[in-house]
Structure formats: C-alpha cells, structure tokens
C-alpha cells in the first residue's frame, strides 16, 4: 500500500509537519507566516489523505475505478477540459487587464499595477512558448 501511495503519504506528512510547526511558532513568528503555514499545511494534509482514501476505495471497487478512469481519459471529456481552460484563460486575461486599470484609477501603489501587468505578460509568453513546443511535437 505504501508503494502506491508514497506521494500521498509525503504530501500528508509534509502538511502535518507544516501545521504543527505553525502552531509551535504561533507566539514567536509573525501572524502572516503562521497563517500561510496553516493554510498550505492543511491543504497538503487533506490532499494527501484524500489521495490515500481514494486509492483504498479504488482497490476495493474496481468497477468504480474503471468508470472513473474512463471518464478522465474519455476523448470528449479531454476536449471539453482543454476548451474550457482556453476560455477561462481568455477571460482571465481581460479580468487582469480590467483589474490593472482599476488599480490605476483608484491610485493604488504602482507595484500592484505592475504585478498585474506582469502576470498578463507571463501568461502571453507562456502561451507562445507552449504553442511552439506543441507545434513541434505534433
């Protein structure tokens, strides 16, 4: 069981360590740091635990595991996921642009505007990179 679940065990363990260490540092470290440790730690712990439970369930229910595998790998579902991701990317780019405009209008610090513009720029660069990469592979 450990062989199949090693990633989930590591995730869960790392999450637990982060949460416990966050509690340990509550009185000495800044609140923001301990908050981040609790947040990330709990997410990792729950993700690891969910993975382990899912693997145990799939082992005892091969029919359900097969159905889930079909749903994940189904070509139409894959196509729908890619199409949805593409739409969300397009909408998010416009949202980031609108947010950047809002930060200018309400006179927020320049670094906030530049951060939003920077994210948009990184998105565009990554898009061009992956488009070219996949063009060469296909």
């Amino acid at each position, binding site marked *: 069981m450990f062989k199949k679940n090693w990633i989930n065990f590591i995730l869960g363990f790392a999450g637990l360590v982060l949460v416990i260490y966050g509690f340990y540092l509550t009185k000495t470290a800044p609140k923001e740091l301990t908050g981040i440790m609790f947040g990330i730690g709990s997410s990792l712990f729950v993700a690891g635990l969910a993975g382990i439970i899912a693997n145990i369930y799939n082992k005892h229910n091969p029919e359900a595991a097969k159905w889930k595998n*079909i*749903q994940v*790998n*189904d*070509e*139409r*579902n894959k196509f729908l996921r890619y199409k949805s991701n593409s739409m969300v990317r397009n909408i998010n780019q416009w949202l980031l642009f609108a947010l950047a405009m809002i930060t200018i209008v309400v006179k927020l610090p320049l670094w906030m505007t530049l951060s939003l513009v920077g994210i948009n720029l990184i998105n565009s660069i990554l898009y061009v990179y992956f488009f070219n990469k996949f063009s060469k592979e296909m």
Partner: protein
Amino acid sequence: MRWLYLKNRLEELRKEKGLTQEELANELEVSRQTISSIENERYEPSITLAFKIAIFFKMKIEEIFIYEVQQNV
C-alpha cells in the same frame, strides 16, 4: 468542392446489436455521453475512436461514418 458534414449510422448499428449506449460505451472504453454526442452528431470522434468503432462492428469506417461532399456546383 464543398465540404459539408459528417453523418453516422452509429445509433442504427448499435440498436441492431441490441446494445444500450452505456453497454457500447463500456465496450469502447469511452463515456456514455460521448456515444450519445456522436449519435446526435454533436461530436465528431477522433480517428482512433472511429477505428475502434469500426473494428467493434466489424465494418469499414466509411460504412459507419459518411462525410457528405458536394461536387462543384
């Protein structure tokens, strides 16, 4: 030449074999929704899936999937 659209006989062939959409989907290892979408011509299968369907029904691809083409008008 004007390319029109893809039609298919999947529903007809499936019913001839007495299969439900769910049963055919299990045989082809796709979701039931994919079979339904193909039959309703809302989704065109990939060449791999088209071959799988043809092999399952022991027919040629062009006997199941018909691409309508209009010659020069």
